């Protein structure tokens, strides 16, 4: 058992060695810390924003998605959507919104742990966080697709508006509305965290791969 843990956590660096090469051994952990802070802050910031513009809404209609909530003119947008038979936006991504904060906390814990793992296993802990922004957008797109393609055929305007896929990022349009979907600051931070983590993994590899290789070479006779 100890051997397994040892092989997962990888080689330790002596304090003397660590202080001698503080940048080399400190950087991966520092970058993961930066990513953790970015993710934590992003929890409180909007991840996605859609603005609807139409002549009779001079101020526009805006809805904003946070990790755990949907805010803004959602009721008004829902009211308009009922004409084309779109389900209430509150019914979209319910699980994701319910789990959002916990997932984020899990990510932060995983990064915390990853900082102590000096083997390739660290990548396993970091990868979900790296992929998270992309997964967010894919999930968003799938929901939009699901909502847009499954319109109530008995809706008032179902003859006038055919099923469509709303644009998850960028400019789209439906009826007299122009829709402008933009990533929120939260998603930008999460993406930044993702990029920081890629860098962290690079520096992690640079720091620990030689140690792992060295240890493997030393340990070979024992295994054989």
């Amino acid at each position, binding site marked *: 058992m100890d051997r397994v843990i040892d092989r997962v956590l990888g080689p330790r660096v002596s304090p003397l060695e660590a202080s001698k090469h503080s940048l080399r051994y400190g950087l991966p952990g520092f970058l993961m810390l930066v990513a953790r802070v970015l993710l934590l802050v992003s929890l409180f910031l909007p991840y996605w924003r859609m603005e609807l513009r139409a002549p009779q809404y001079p101020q526009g209609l805006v809805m904003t998605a946070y990790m755990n909530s949907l805010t803004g003119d959602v009721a*008004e947008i829902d*009211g*308009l959507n009922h*004409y084309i038979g779109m389900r209430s936006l509150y019914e979209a991504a319910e699980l994701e919104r319910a789990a959002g904060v916990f997932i984020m906390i899990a990510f932060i814990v995983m990064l915390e742990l990853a900082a102590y793992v000096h083997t390739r296993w660290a990548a396993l802990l970091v990868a979900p966080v790296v992929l998270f922004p992309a997964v967010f957008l894919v999930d968003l797109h799938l929901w939009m697709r699901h909502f847009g393609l499954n319109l109530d055929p008995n809706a008032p305007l179902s003859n006038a508006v055919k099923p469509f896929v709303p644009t998850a990022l960028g400019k789209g349009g439906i009826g007299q509305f122009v829709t402008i979907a933009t990533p929120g600051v939260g998603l930008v931070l999460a993406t930044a965290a993702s990029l920081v983590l890629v860098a962290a993994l690079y520096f992690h590899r640079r720091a620990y791969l030689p140690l792992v290789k060295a240890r493997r070479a030393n340990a070979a006779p024992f295994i054989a």
Partner: protein
Amino acid sequence: MKSAKTKASSVPLTLAILTVCGLAAAASAQSMRDVEAVAKERGLTNADLIAAAKTYLPSGKKDEYLMFASGGHAGQVFVVGIPSMRLLRSIAVFTPEPWQGWGYGVGDKIIAEGFPKGKSNLWGDTHHPALSETKGDYDGQFLFINDKINARVAVIDLRDWETKQIVKNPLTLSDHGGTFVTPDTEYVIEGGQYALPWGAAFAPIADYKEKYKGSVTLWKFDRARGRIDKEQSFAIELPLYWHDLADAGKGASDGFIFLNSLNSEKATGGIQDKQPPFEAGASRNPTDFLHIIDWRKAEALFKAGKTVQIEGFPVITLETAVAEGLLHITPEPRSPHGVDVTPKGEFVVVAGKLDPHVTVFSIEKIKRAIAAKNFSGKDDYGVPILDFDSVVEKRVELGLGPLHTQFGPDGYAYTSLYLDSAVARWTLGGSYGSGTPEPDWTVVQKTPVHYNVGHLAAAEGDTVSPDGKYLVSLNKWAVDRFVQTGPLLPQNLQLLDISSKGTNMPVIYDMAMGVGEPHYAQIIKADKINAWATYPEVGWDPHQQNINPSAPKPKGERVERGADGTVDIYMTAIRSHFNPEHVYLKQGEKVRWHITNTERAVDATHGFAVPVYNITASLEPGESVTIEFVADTAGTFPFYCTEFCSALHLEMMGYLMVEPK
């Protein structure tokens, strides 16, 4: 290149054009030459262009001031933006008004609170609006308005611009000296007009001197509740003169009410019996009486219980008022109209419409005369008459037919001259004298208006801090100002620019008011009013100004039949449907139809109208109302939304089916 001479003569035009261009959003593609061409084609002078530049509001730009004008016998209030002079809203008060859904299922109970002698009266004669005040300045919270024909006072809440209360004066059927508020809106003053027996009971004219009475009523305003508190209100009996306009003292004159009167002759008319008609009999004496009432003293007497109950209402009798020294009178030019207190409160300006002067009384002199009992006599009712010469400060000759006076920030006063058909600018003296370049107490300018000005209103011109800038002349006759609209002509409300000193005081806009005859108006800075864009929450009861917990909610739509046979319908309205859409009733059932507009978007108003049953309601976003009626007529009734709320507005309907017995 133009010659130097042409250049010089075109300077004002160029200035005007520059102003116009500066305001125009799309000016970049247009040149001054285009403006010149339009002016030439339309025959506009430089003055016209400047007036246009001062008043024109491009789409989306908003007015700086709001004018709340009475609607006269339209029985409403009209709200006009200044300087654009656009009619922005009417506010239904005493008269049912279908667009606002007032009096056709909603508001009926409030209107009925004011029914005189229990009889349905579905109009009013609104004269004098009064904005609520704090420390003598408009606070933008409430508006009060009187009804001259039946002696009523209404309270309008300026959050949602709806009438909240109508109180009927139990003593009389005729008021004119109202509404005016005390400096902190402690009381809303309602002075009676034509003398009447108490409660307008029957009394032959032969009993005039014995049975006919005058009065002024002080309605206590409960600001927290937004209602007049009838239990804390009282009246003061006055001599049977006809009482005209009133004003509350402020600053130096705080604590006083000034109330004009006419018919000190106690004429009773009788032209059919070859007696002098009222118009002659009531204007025979050279003077009538200005009433000076110490309302704080009156309030103390009321609180001490020194009142008698008349028509179930506490009244300080004339005898008590005289004995306690709360009422004094002093001669004033006959048949006066306006009595207006200067901003700091030290002068009271009375305009006697048959006298070319305004008479300015000094509060300091009045107080001194009261203290020294400097009386020139007593009237027939024992009311002490303050010696005229000892209380008057100045008489200023303005012209013919002076009626009402308002004030500017700089020491100018403005008085309407009905017969001269002009607005006079004149200088005050005393502490105001230094504000104007002209000598004190002199006429500076008379600007002709078209025609026959009644009241006038300057921006915040009857408060402790007038703004100047704009003045509206509320003209009674329009004669030739507009396209002929049949023999009934609109009123002409003319906007004057009073921002410059001296003789420059031009008319810059004519507004046709073709929906009523405003008497008095007050002009308030628009940003002082915090009007709601929608009701704060869905299920809002505007009468309670609170959430109604039993208001219909989405998914809670239903029809309930109570044990007593009353049917409660809980309906919601949202673009573009009512829920339920089918409603079955049995003939004779009593119905309480509750509807909530569940919209949150600004301007997403829905109407609710039922044919035959004479029902039309206006439901603003969030509003919930209850309409009560008896389903006494069998049939099938398509109800629908009267507001063009959406593209599928036409489809926003349902059927009420009343099964015959």
